[in-house]
């Protein structure tokens, strides 16, 4: 069964450092997303991406965050200067064109980011 793959599974970084989280979405999916889950809290929407541009973003997704689909397969989330509060599990997801149905997301296993 096709799956969304994320790397790294765990990254530890120092505050102020740049971090890039990588995702390979399902090949025939057209819509890509990043979510995060701070330990013990809800899964929060960060950004959605379609046709090589951001289609929607949350208030969490400020100027420190950026996304890119550099080569047609990878989908990356960059955090320019990490803060302690960026420590979370980051989930990548993708979905097909929903047509008239529900927009079902397929998630990766997540990348745990620890900022020290």
């Amino acid at each position, binding site marked *: 069964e096709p799956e969304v793959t994320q790397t790294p599974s765990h990254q530890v970084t120092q505050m102020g450092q740049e971090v890039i989280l990588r995702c390979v979405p399902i090949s025939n999916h057209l819509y890509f*997303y990043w979510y995060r889950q701070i330990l013990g809290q*809800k*899964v*929060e*929407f960060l950004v959605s991406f379609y046709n090589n541009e951001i289609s*929607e973003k949350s208030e969490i997704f400020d100027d420190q965050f950026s996304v890119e689909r550099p080569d047609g397969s990878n989908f990356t989330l960059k955090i320019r200067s990490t803060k302690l509060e960026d420590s979370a599990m980051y989930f990548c*997801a993708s979905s097909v064109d929903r047509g008239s149905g529900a*927009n079902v997301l397929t998630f990766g*296993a997540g990348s745990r980011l620890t900022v020290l």
Partner: protein
Amino acid sequence: DQQVKQNSPSLSVQEGRISILNCDYTNSMFDYFLWYKKYPAEGPTFLISISSIKDKNEDGRFTVFLNKSAKHLSLHIVPSQPGDSAVYFCAASVGFKTIFGAGTRLFVKA
């Protein structure tokens, strides 16, 4: 942002009995509601969805009920099995934005 709320952080049920997980929402613009299940060290996986114009959708042991006037939905699992033990997230979508609740941890005891 409290658009989707799951007020019960955990639920414990005996194997074979019914599990009922509840969810409330505030935004009338949501067009679909979904339930996802999450095991430790894995991402959420889709379970079942319901359109905002329906009041019930059933898939095997899983049934989702939607009460639009109360802005409430519930997931029923019958019969519950130990393998159903996981965190269940209620989610609501409009366009390509999906908002998740905080999750309910379900324990099914053998």
